[in-house]
Structure formats: structure tokens, C-alpha cells
């Protein structure tokens, strides 16, 4: 566990909680990233606020990089594993109505049974695949 970073995890997690809460307080919306981004692309109605949210997603890490003067993190290689993973994440979050933010934070935060089950499900398959492959 020498790579455990509890302080940045708690600080970053709190920011994520504040961001998701802000969208609920101001627009009355669930901050599910897969849903918002996909509807920003595929649905005309409600596109403007969703695009603004996506713009925010792209800007946030750049602002952090300005503050801490560091924008380095690993990214995956472009290979079949990465492409298959992207396809599965797209299919799975659409069929499953949400991802880590929508189910894992907003859904569990509302004590939604569907989100609790969905989160246990993707955590389980995620751990199995990451540990074995």
C-alpha cells in the first residue's frame, strides 16, 4: 500500500461531491457523466447545459494543472484492448443507465436500490477483470 494517497483522495473526492451536489441544487439534475455526455451528443433537447457541463469537464484538470504546475498522468496506449474497453464502457453505461458518477455517487447518495446493485455489479466485474487480466 505504499502508493496510497489518502489526502489527495479525500480532497479530490470532496470536490467531486461538491460538483455533483451543485448540479442538483442549481439545475435539479443528476450529475451522471455517461448520461450527460451521451445526451449532449445524441439529443437536441437540453443540449446547451449538457455541452456546458462537458466543457467544464475538459477545463477542470487544466485549471488544477495551472495551480499545481503539473499536468502529467499516464494514458493508455492505442491498441485493441483500449478500443474494446471503450466500446464495453459505452455499451454498459448506456444499457445500465449510468457509470461511476451517476450510480456510484448520485445514486448511492440517494439510497437508490438500482444504483447500489449496479455499483456492486461493476465494482465486482471491474475487480475480477483488472485482477485476472
Amino acid at each position, binding site marked *: *500500500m505504499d502508493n496510497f494517497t489518502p489526502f489527495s483522495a479525500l480532497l479530490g473526492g470532496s470536490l467531486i461531491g461538491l460538483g455533483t451536489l451543485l448540479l442538483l441544487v442549481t439545475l435539479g439534475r443528476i450529475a451522471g457523466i455517461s448520461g450527460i455526455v451521451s445526451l449532449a451528443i445524441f439529443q437536441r433537447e437540453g443540449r446547451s447545459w449538457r455541452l456546458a457541463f462537458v466543457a467544464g469537464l475538459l477545463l477542470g484538470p*487544466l485549471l488544477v494543472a495551472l495551480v499545481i504546475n503539473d499536468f502529467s498522468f*499516464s494514458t493508455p496506449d492505442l491498441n485493441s484492448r483500449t478500443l474494446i474497453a471503450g466500446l464495453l464502457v459505452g455499451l454498459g453505461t448506456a444499457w445500465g443507465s449510468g457509470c461511476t458518477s451517476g450510480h456510484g455517487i448520485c445514486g448511492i447518495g440517494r439510497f437508490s436500490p438500482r444504483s447500489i446493485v449496479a455499483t456492486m455489479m461493476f465494482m465486482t466485474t471491474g475487480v475480477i477483470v483488472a485482477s485476472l487480466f
Partner: protein
Amino acid sequence: MHLFFALLSGMLISAGIAVSKMIDPQKVLSFLDVSGNWDPSLALVMAAALLVYTLGYRLVLNKSTPLFDKNFYLPTKQHLDRSLLAGAAIFGVGWGLTGYCPGPAIAALPAASTGTAGFVAMMVLGWFIAGKIPINKRQQKS
């Protein structure tokens, strides 16, 4: 106001993803891969986000409407179905393969990595295909 707060919300969330280092898929994999040098950081990220959201949610729901809209848009479905279970399972497989879920992958796009761009392009294709081939009957979204 809608646009400003949507932008600010997205910015806070992805700033959190960057600060917590969840923007780095290797960091996420070091949590999901329990066979190696296990890193519990992701659990603390979720715990902190959940604590803030859950407490805030209790306070917010005492209000009848959000600040800048006429009503809340909350999911109404309660029952579990095949689409939810199969979808979540498939999502987890993709997550475990690379360590990317949608938020970090999109937040990492400005780093201009071809791998990240390829992942996001395929994710969008997946959304498109799943929209054409629903597992349950088509779900209405507002």
C-alpha cells in the same frame, strides 16, 4: 445561469478527478487489481464524494425546487431489470480492462493522447449502438 452552473459543476467534478489522481487509469487499476500492490485511494475518493453528496442531498430535498429550474429531474425507476444488471456488468469489464470510466476518460482528453481519444470514440460508438439496440424497451430520458 443554467450554462454557468453546468460548466462550474463539470469543472468541480473533473478538478476532483484530477486532484484525486483518478484521471490516471493506472491509479484506478491499482485499486481494482487486488492481486498486486493494492491502493485503496479510490475507495476514499468515493467515500468523500458520497459523504458530501448524501449530506447535501438531505438539505436540498427540503426545498421544493432547484434554484434555477422549476423541478428536480430525478430517476423514478425502482425495480431491477436485465438491462441494468447486464449493462453494469459489461461496464465493469471495460473499466477493469483499462482503468477508465467515462469521467476520467473525458477529463483526460486535453492531454491529447491517442489511446484516450480512441477509448472515448469507441465509448461514444457504444452509446450509439446501445441506443439502437435496447435490452429492455426504450427508456425515456428528459
